[in-house]
């Protein structure tokens, strides 16, 4: 009890946290007084050793990690719990969504998914002029940034070219806000080149949107999908109970044999153990907390347990592969050498097989299986590269890079990201990026994200921070929850050298107190 009191006091007196951030951390401490969902002793040890990482979701899951409300359904049917009638015009629709957003739970406390916003609002445009839409959306965008100050808050546009998508890109370039994070769903057969070009010009200014391969992602889902948080693709009207990730570097350290025995033994054992943790946490949320029986989103059909699954993530593939190569007496590395790339591919395919073979409860959203996800890392990952990324600073030229990673992108129905780095000169020639994106998608990439050197916005992984916010945070705290996480990432991974970066979330922050 004394220990809890100390932790609470530390939060209460931390001048770098605002009131809401303190409340979030206090809740985390309260949750930590509960016993962890029942798992084996070995799995508990693996969690303690951070071999398996639950991304600081907390001891007692009382809300799903990722919730993707079916906003279209809500708009059509209204929300009784919030006493909201279906909107009849643009203003009402924006007001409706603004209210609903605040109610959507997540690990960070802020909704990770705000909908495919252009599609949602197109029905309400009526005879509004583009300028009127612009003025209304600008206020909406400011509302989102100020009330949901977390870089994991994610909104989608596309794949159709439309007035709202274009206005949003224009607003993004003007307001230069961190929130919301943005994804453009892109399909060469549907999306116009002009919209993709607009998107690229926007990336030059604010390092977003990400461009998602719509065709590939759609084929992985029964219904509609959304891109949320850090490149996670999940079913709309559902989401993911939890995301547990396996540290491939650490399990390679524990393994004493060659690559073959790693794949058949150690890898399999720890994948199963990770799936055990996923199962235990999912059951706790569904059976003990009864979240899906009690939350108004579920009760009113805005989400449904049937559209949920869980996420199996991993990180540190590069370090795992390089170490196994070294042990076999070969100085070959992932991203550079064919043999190392082949081993990486083999490991990923094996993991995918293991994940797909395990039937999990409450995972109907993905036919009873977990979504496979290359997790893009968090600030504590000092020795491990994000997901299946090539280590920062070792990336080969862009074509080799794409040709190395594209062949495994299809495996990750739960999402994957690689970040490509371009020199400032590309600003004068945005159609160059259009060429590369089209080529990358042709080669089978799922998601394309790029950064410019010396941009005001820095992409840590899936989320953004402003350079100035980082600087300020170190001095006096930040309005954005994610800035702290990013500051740690910067310190740990030298983001100014950035070619690609790591993930963030508030829960890790909480665990510090």
């Amino acid at each position: 009890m004394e220990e809890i009191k100390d932790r609470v006091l530390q939060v209460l007196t931390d001048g770098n946290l605002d009131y809401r951030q303190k409340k979030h951390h206090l809740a985390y401490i309260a949750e930590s007084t509960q016993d962890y969902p029942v798992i084996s002793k070995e799995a508990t040890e693996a969690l303690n050793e951070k071999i398996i990482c639950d991304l600081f979701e907390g001891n007692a899951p009382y809300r799903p990690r990722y919730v993707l409300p079916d906003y279209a359904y809500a708009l059509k049917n209204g929300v009784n719990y919030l006493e909201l009638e279906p909107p009849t015009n643009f203003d009402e629709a924006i007001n409706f969504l603004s209210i609903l957003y605040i109610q959507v739970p997540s690990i960070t406390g802020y909704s990770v998914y705000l909908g495919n916003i252009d599609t949602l609002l197109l029905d309400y445009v009526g005879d509004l002029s583009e300028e009127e839409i612009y003025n209304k959306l600008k206020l909406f965008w400011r509302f989102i940034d100020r009330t949901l100050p977390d870089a994991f808050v994610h909104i989608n546009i596309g794949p159709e070219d439309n007035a709202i998508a274009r206005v949003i890109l224009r607003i993004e370039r003007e307001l230069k806000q961190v929130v919301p994070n943005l994804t453009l769903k892109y399909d060469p057969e549907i999306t116009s080149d002009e919209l993709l070009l607009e998107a690229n010009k926007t990336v030059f200014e604010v390092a977003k949107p990400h461009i998602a391969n719509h065709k590939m992602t759609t084929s992985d889902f029964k219904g509609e999908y959304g891109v949320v948080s850090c490149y996670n693709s999940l079913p709309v009207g559902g989401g993911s109970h939890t995301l547990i990730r396996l540290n491939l570097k650490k399990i390679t350290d524990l393994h004493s044999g060659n690559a073959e025995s790693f794949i058949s033994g150690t890898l399999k054992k720890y994948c199963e153990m990770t799936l055990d943790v996923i199962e235990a946490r999912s059951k706790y949320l569904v059976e003990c907390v009864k979240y899906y029986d009690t939350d108004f989103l579920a009760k009113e059909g805005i989400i449904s347990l049937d559209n949920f699954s869980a996420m199996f993530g991993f990180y540190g593939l590069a370090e795992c592969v390089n170490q196994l190569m070294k042990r076999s007496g070969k100085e070959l590395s992932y991203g550079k050498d064919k043999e190392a790339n082949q081993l990486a591919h083999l490991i990923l395919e094996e993991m995918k097989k293991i994940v797909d073979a395990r039937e999990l409860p409450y995972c109907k959203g993905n036919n009873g299986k977990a979504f496979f996800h290359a997790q893009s890392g968090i600030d504590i990952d000092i020795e491990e590269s994000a997901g299946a990324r090539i280590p920062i600073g070792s990336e080969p030229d862009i074509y080799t890079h794409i040709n190395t990673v594209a062949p495994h992108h299809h495996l990750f129905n739960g999402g994957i990201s690689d970040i490509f780095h371009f020199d400032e000169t590309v600003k004068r020639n945005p159609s160059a990026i259009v060429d590369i994106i089209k080529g990358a998608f042709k080669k089978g990439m799922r998601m394309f994200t790029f950064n410019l050197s010396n941009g005001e916005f820095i992409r840590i992984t899936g989320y953004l921070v402003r350079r100035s916010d980082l600087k300020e945070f170190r001095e006096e705290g930040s309005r954005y929850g994610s800035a702290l996480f990013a500051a740690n990432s910067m310190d740990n991974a030298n983001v100014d050298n950035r070619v690609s970066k790591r993930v963030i979330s508030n829960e890790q922050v909480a665990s510090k107190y």
Partner: protein
Amino acid sequence: MSKLQANISGIIKSSVIDGPGNRMVIFFQECNLNCMYCHNSHTIGLCNLCGTCVDTCPTNSLQIDSKNKRIIHNENTCTRCDECLNVCPENSSPFYKQMSVEDIISEILEVKDFISGITVSGGEVMLHAPFLGLLFQEIKLHYDLKHLSILIDSNGNIEQEEWESLLPLIDGVMLDIKAYSAKTHKQITGYSNEKVLKSIEYLNDKNKLKELRFVLTPNYNNDESELREIARLMKSVSPNVGKTLIKMRNHGIRKEFSFLREANTEEMNFAKNIFVQADIDILEI
């Protein structure tokens, strides 16, 4: 396919600064101008097997192959210190290699999904007009490549007839004007500019001039009368031709030209104003 070969000093598979979109750029060896501020002076000359580089190489990575009349370069031991380039009396390089049309096509095929087109550059690429003709024809006939745009980056110092057969195959030419006054042009490049001016006029008439660039070099081409002549020339071509004012940068130029000075902000603004006064939409880089 033809046995014709060309000396290729390098290929960049992704460039965002050599025309619209992402492009593969093929650099040809040998130039017919000798600009003081040339940043790639090792692409000006051809190797005459004098052996100076072989003797200078600190890692003994170069060797004369007298039978085949070429320099053998050992990539495994070479540290790319570029001392060989610094000492070459011919402004040449031991690194360029002979390639056939077929060789270049196979390089393009590797990256075809990622590019809008190709740009051929130099050196002075128009010295290889017959080779270019074959290369471009091959691209236009190839099922997987025919959609690619083709741009030529040239100094324009070439006879009109060299352009003629290439124009139907290409999308445009990006061209420099180093100076309007023949005397100044000779000071900067070692040669007069009659052919360059004719090329500009000819390509503009044929609607193939894509970009016209002017490199501002203080003490040479930055006095008001020279700038007004350049502005007049730029105004005389189609408004669709991109115009660019480039600040001469003195990094990477040869030691004997280290006296060249970069324009300061005031000088750049002075030049820019002259173009703006002439109602020219010009990009400054």
